[in-house]
């Protein structure tokens, strides 16, 4: 428990640093005023808007004001929606979570059996097929897989909707797009991890006890082999929540990724800052969860208090 608390405390400087970096990057990459006003606007009008938004203050004063608000839970108003940015971001969270979880489910359902099977049948034809498929899966970029799936299943076969959200059918294609990429990576990891464990002495011990082979694999081998896989799963889940920018855009999925892309394009500073802040917290939390799960899975890991 003390380990957990000390790690939560360590989050604070990380978040502080992230907010600073994002704050500066948003301001050096472009001027929101140029996008907000029509091209016919006069210089004076632009100047007035700048003043009103506080963009004429020195950067450190802007940051100071911004942080003062953030500490009160106020990330500022979206320039586009004229609503509190945090609310807009949080509104998108459920959609992002749904997609992340279903993609992870696809990845686990594909990779765990495939990884185990190819480890047990190593150097056979089926192993070759699985390893080959996972190399291919890793090599195909998400946006391309997404477009190909749309072409095949939506345009040609008409089974699933092209884009949008709302029903379970809308979830299928984006989940497969994201899931296969992660499955490819996890399959290779599970395979190598399983191979290592299967060659270990305690598997021989388990067999010498007279255990059924299926039991040896499921209880003795798999539980040990899954330890490194958990790390990858946790890291991928956090990337899935915030980092699915391209896939969400391809499928018009109303998640945080899509919101972030739009906000960056429109120089909607408050939304970009709020979204990155939330994503940062989620990434940190999932890493922390991985740590805790690790501890549960592997009794050898002891965290110093």
């Amino acid at each position: 428990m003390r380990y957990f608390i000390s790690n939560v405390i360590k989050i604070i400087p990380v978040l502080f640093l992230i907010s600073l970096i994002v704050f500066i990057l948003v301001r050096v990459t472009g001027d929101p005023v140029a996008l907000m006003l029509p091209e016919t606007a006069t210089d004076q009008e632009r100047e007035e808007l700048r003043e009103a938004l506080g963009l004429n203050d020195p950067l450190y004063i802007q940051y100071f004001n911004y942080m003062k608000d953030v500490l009160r839970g106020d990330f500022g108003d979206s320039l586009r929606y004229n609503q509190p940015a945090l609310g807009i971001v949080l509104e998108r969270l459920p959609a992002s979570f749904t997609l992340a979880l279903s993609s992870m489910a696809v990845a686990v359902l594909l990779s765990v059996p495939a990884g185990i099977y190819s480890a047990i049948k190593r150097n056979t034809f089926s192993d070759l097929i699985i390893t080959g498929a996972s190399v291919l899966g890793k090599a195909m970029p998400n946006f391309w897989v997404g477009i190909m799936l749309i072409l095949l299943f939506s345009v040609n076969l008409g089974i699933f909707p092209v884009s949008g959200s709302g029903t379970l059918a809308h979830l299928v294609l984006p989940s497969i797009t994201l899931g296969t990429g992660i499955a490819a990576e996890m399959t290779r990891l599970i395979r190598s991890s399983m191979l290592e464990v299967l060659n270990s002495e305690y598997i021989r011990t388990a067999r010498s006890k007279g255990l059924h082979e299926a039991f040896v694999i499921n209880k003795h081998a798999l539980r040990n082999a899954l330890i490194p896989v958990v790390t990858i799963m946790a890291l991928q889940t956090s990337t899935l929540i915030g980092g699915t920018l391209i896939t969400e855009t391809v499928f018009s999925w109303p998640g945080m990724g899509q919101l972030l892309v739009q906000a960056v394009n429109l120089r909607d500073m408050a939304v970009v800052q709020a979204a990155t802040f939330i994503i940062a917290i989620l990434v940190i939390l999932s890493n922390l969860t991985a740590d805790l799960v690790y501890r549960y899975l592997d009794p050898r890991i002891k965290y110093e208090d």
Partner: protein
Amino acid sequence: MTTALKKPSRKVLMEVRGLKKHFEIKKGTFKKEIVEVKAVDGVDFEIYEGETLGIVGESGCGKSTTGEMLLGLLKPTEGTVKFMGKDLTKLNKKELREIRKDIQVIFQDPYSSLNPRMTVEQIIGEPLQLHTSMSKQEIREEVIRLMKVVGLNEEQLKRYPHEFSGGQRQRIGIARALALKPKLIICDEPVSALDVSIQAQILNLLKKLQKEFNLTLVFIAHGLPAVRHISDRIAVMYLGKIVEIAERDELFANPKHPYTEALLSSIPVDHPRLRRKREPLKGDLPNPANPPGGCPFHTRCPYAQEICKTSAPELKDYHEGHLAACHFPIE
């Protein structure tokens, strides 16, 4: 011990005949070339009830492979392993799992042979759960009893293997092997991964348990000193074959095979003044994938003659169960 094992009272527990294990290794760029490694190449011996048979040889001589075949964990290429009348090589998977009750194993490396995610209770209790109809409480009591037998205490029941020292881990391994009250335990170099001071403790423990539980032991080791302490009979293996097998004292006093002689002369003596004339073996162990023809030992044998290069000697009985395979046995 030796006198008690004279022929009339001997009952054969396991009989090994013509046991062979050949591994195929694919070589070359396209793995087209297949090389056959004869890890075990025609081994015959008996294990008598209540005795300890030591199997000694250099790394790669096939002693551990032999051990795995005695356990039924490895299918032999040829030959039979008869245990109490049943041929292990002909049993199906289910029958083999059943035979685990009677034949157990203690592995070499106590660090890697215990599942890191299982507590001592689970490790020792799992065979009981599997092969007996004991209740959870009965299993726990039995595990505690076994832990005490091997010199561990009850408080360590819920600990994980990494919380123990090497010697303690090997004790866990021994308790696990004992759990099902087996008749035969194969000890595959059980002390070679341990500190010298711990080695003696574990050997003494095994000796004590053997008497207590009327166990038959096969003790695999790569040096004669370790097996001398514990064995009644010793088999010396070289390149997949048994070159000599005899009662312990007989073997140490009158080695017949030059390889045994060389192994004996390589044992360090206790006192520097006792330094004996040593005859170190020349050369290395030949590649088991390409063993020399004739007598496999002729490339390193100080007494080798022409005939040794062409014809392989058979195991011959020289004196009451003292067998050796040599054209020119030492008198």
